[in-house]
């Protein structure tokens, strides 16, 4: 391979990106060196095993990826705003919609939610950390390096261009030559390791590390949603792992699992992809449901309506999410019986979701509602998500789907589900738990601007796409003719897209503004309405051991019970005992670096490099296996000092 093939060349947009990436890297290196922050970065962040810090790093990466995926989206919207546009060529457009989809689902939505789960769940169940803190760091670093590997494709080697679903035979060597598609396979594979480990980690954490008295049916709804999500992850992600591995074998080693030659089955890829892909939809939406439940209950000052119905709805969804996958390819032609069965299962899965919508409405009924920004996002969610859900039931009818499929109607539908469901939840959750992470709230006034601009932009962007779809505009086309008459609605949609972009900028400004000017919180219950244990900590940002004394839970909504009983949350000196905590470790960071080397080598089919990287990974595994370190104790003096207890 020549060097001019190694780097992506020939497009001014890419050169611009090269320059900005270079400048950003130089800027960061300069900042770290000039302010002598290297040591701080290493000890406080890169080697941490603290669930709160890992959560913050997850969220920060996700916001970064939201920016990248958002820019991709805006580039697409610019190209489509006018007919016969020459802004992007077809290959570049294909690359952008592929990276947009992949990044938004795998590297934005999931890490954002997993980040919030990381920060909140151990606090909500009264634990000091997750069950396997070291593994948690491995999870984060494999996700992060997978995301970086995927993003490097942009400037080195070329991006994948077969769509985020990577259907075969399009994604095969014949139709997608070069390293692009390999980036997709390896990036997702490495990040997938992290997700699977997170699934195991939080499953064990929630089942085994709850505070005394917190029975399963006293767990907050968000904890329940996280538990169900982790079960789905543990069962669904191995399917993706296997499917990706098989396609990697096809592309790198000449196997014929999904190829057209050699008795491969191309549609088996679509089948396996959606066997993972549909549960994946619930992986990104159930934690969102959990967060909305917490927020709506908190700001309605009422306990959640129909708690058990909420839980059972989620449990049913967990099982059911594995039985609807064929609705993603009704037009593959599996016949009437298959399509009818999956049509019906798809419509049925709407029922538990409907139950949840009504439960949220009834939670608000006769509640004393505070219209804070997290609550606004939750209300916006209910309205917009119902549009997504109803159009989903339309698509669920196999016969009608032959008309809708592969059009912008579908595109609009899943954006209504994923943005109104997941992205709204990410914003709502981030604002709601922001004081738990940083000790101050995001500015509410600016936050309301973000909400309204984003919501209006969102609807202006995607409502026209429903109509475009019904007018027959296919998805994944890089341009269309003026004669089609799709120009005006596309322009309108682009305007909406840019409004969402503006909202994102206001949000970023809000981060800066609130960092400078927001009032610092001095109690653990920042909103004054907390119902669950994460708000019962003695300081706004909990110390690294979370709770000086493990709380005892007597009922659902434990903090409400404590407030009613006038329990003094300040720990007594006589109760303070030394606390066992895990040590930091740099090994996960190095392990992910080796994963990067291995992944990069395999992408370019430089097998020597892949082998070197994998040997490195095994060495880090061995180092960990023979590490006698069993953590350390936080002394009673240190706890007393942290909790400001006078002796």
């Amino acid at each position, binding site marked *: 391979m020549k060097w001019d093939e190694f780097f992506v060349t020939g497009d001014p947009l890419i050169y611009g990106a090269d320059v900005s990436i270079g400048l950003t890297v130089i800027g960061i290196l300069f900042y770290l060196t000039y302010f002598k922050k290297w040591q701080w970065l290493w000890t406080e962040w890169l080697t941490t095993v603290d669930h709160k810090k890992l959560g913050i790093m997850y969220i920060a990466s996700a916001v970064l990826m939201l920016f990248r995926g958002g820019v991709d989206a805006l580039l697409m919207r610019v190209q489509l705003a006018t007919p016969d546009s020459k802004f992007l060529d077809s290959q570049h457009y294909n690359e952008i919609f592929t990276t947009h989809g992949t990044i938004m689902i795998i590297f934005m939505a999931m890490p954002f939610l997993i980040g919030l789960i990381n920060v909140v769940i151990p606090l909500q169940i009264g634990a000091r950390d997750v069950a396997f803190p070291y593994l948690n760091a491995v999870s984060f670093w494999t996700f992060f390096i997978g995301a970086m590997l995927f993003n490097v494709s942009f400037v080195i080697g070329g991006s994948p261009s077969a769509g985020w679903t990577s259907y075969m035979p399009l994604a095969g060597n014949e139709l997608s030559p070069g390293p692009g598609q390999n980036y997709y396979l390896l990036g997702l594979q490495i990040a997938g390791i992290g997700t699977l480990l997170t699934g195991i980690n939080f499953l064990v954490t929630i089942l085994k590390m709850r505070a005394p008295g917190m029975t399963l049916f006293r767990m907050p709804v968000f904890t329940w949603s996280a538990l169900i999500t982790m079960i789905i992850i543990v069962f669904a992600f191995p399917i993706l792992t296997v499917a990706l591995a098989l396609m990697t074998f096809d592309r790198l080693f000449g196997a014929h699992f999904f190829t057209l*030659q050699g008795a491969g089955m191309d549609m088996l890829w679509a089948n396996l992809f959606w066997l993972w892909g549909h549960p994946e939809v619930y992986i990104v939406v159930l934690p969102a449901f959990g967060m909305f439940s917490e927020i709506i209950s908190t700001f309605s000052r009422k306990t959640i309506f129909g708690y058990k119905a909420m839980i059972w709805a989620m449990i049913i969804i967990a*099982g059911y999410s594995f039985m609807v996958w*064929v609705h993603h390819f009704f037009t593959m*032609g*599996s*016949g009437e019986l*298959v399509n009818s069965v999956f049509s019906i299962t798809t419509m049925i899965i709407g029922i538990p979701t409907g139950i949840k919508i009504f439960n949220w409405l009834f939670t608000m009924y006769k509640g004393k509602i505070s219209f804070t920004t997290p609550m606004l996002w939750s209300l916006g969610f209910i309205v917009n998500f119902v549009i997504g859900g109803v159009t989903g039931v339309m698509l669920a009818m196999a016969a009608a789907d032959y008309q809708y499929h*592969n059009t912008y109607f579908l595109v609009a539908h899943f954006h209504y589900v994923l943005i109104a469901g997941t992205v709204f939840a990410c914003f709502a959750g981030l604002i709601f738990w922001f004081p738990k992470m940083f000790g101050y709230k995001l500015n509410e006034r600016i936050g309301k601007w973000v909400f309204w601009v984003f919501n209006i932009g969102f609807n202006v962007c995607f409502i026209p796409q429903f109509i475009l779809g019904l007018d027959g505009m296919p998805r994944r086309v890089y341009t269309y003719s003026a004669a089609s008459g799709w120009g005006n609605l596309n322009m309108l949609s682009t305007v909406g897209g840019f409004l969402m972009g503006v909202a994102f900028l206001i949000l970023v400004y809000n981060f800066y503004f609130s960092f400078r000017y927001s009032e610092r919180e001095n109690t653990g219950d920042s909103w004054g309405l907390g119902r669950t244990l994460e708000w019962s900590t003695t300081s706004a940002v909990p110390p690294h051991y979370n709770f000086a004394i493990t709380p005892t839970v007597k009922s659902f909504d434990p903090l409400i019970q404590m407030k009613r009983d006038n329990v003094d949350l300040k720990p007594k000196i006589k109760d303070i005992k030394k606390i*066992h905590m895990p040590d930091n470790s740099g090994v996960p960071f190095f392990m992910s670096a080796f994963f990067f080397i291995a992944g990069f080598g395999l992408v370019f089919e430089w097998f020597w490099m892949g082998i070197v990287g994998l040997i490195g990974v095994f060495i880090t595994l061995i180092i960990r296996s023979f590490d006698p370190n*069993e953590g350390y104790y936080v002394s009673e003096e240190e706890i007393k000092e942290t909790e400001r207890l006078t002796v």
Partner: protein
Amino acid sequence: MANPQDSLSREHGGIPWKHVIGYLLSIILTALALWVTFETGFSTRTILIIIFIFAFLQAALQLLMFMHMTESSEKKSKLTGQTQTGNILFAAFIAIVIVAGSVWVMSAGHAEHDHHKMDSKTHDMKMDGDMKMDHGDHK
């Protein structure tokens, strides 16, 4: 964050032979499957039957050696027992859905008279049919 006293190394002590043996047997079964496929002259059908047997053996082996299948529930609470039973049942259910569901979806309808098990000449013709996404049922 287990208490250091309960940590795995103290509980079991020494080399975890059970895991080592399970690991070695897994590798041997995998290598045997590869050998049968590449080095023997059996028919495809026979090879499939043999490697399926190896696969089930290996699954059983891993459940026994790694997944604590044989541990009694005496030491555990009722909830843990229930969770484990539920887990196994759910896992079996999902496995059936994935395998039987895939076979059904991939072999029903149009796929039924459109296998890829044919020589390359007729194959090219079939390829066109496959790539056309929008055709309806052939029946």
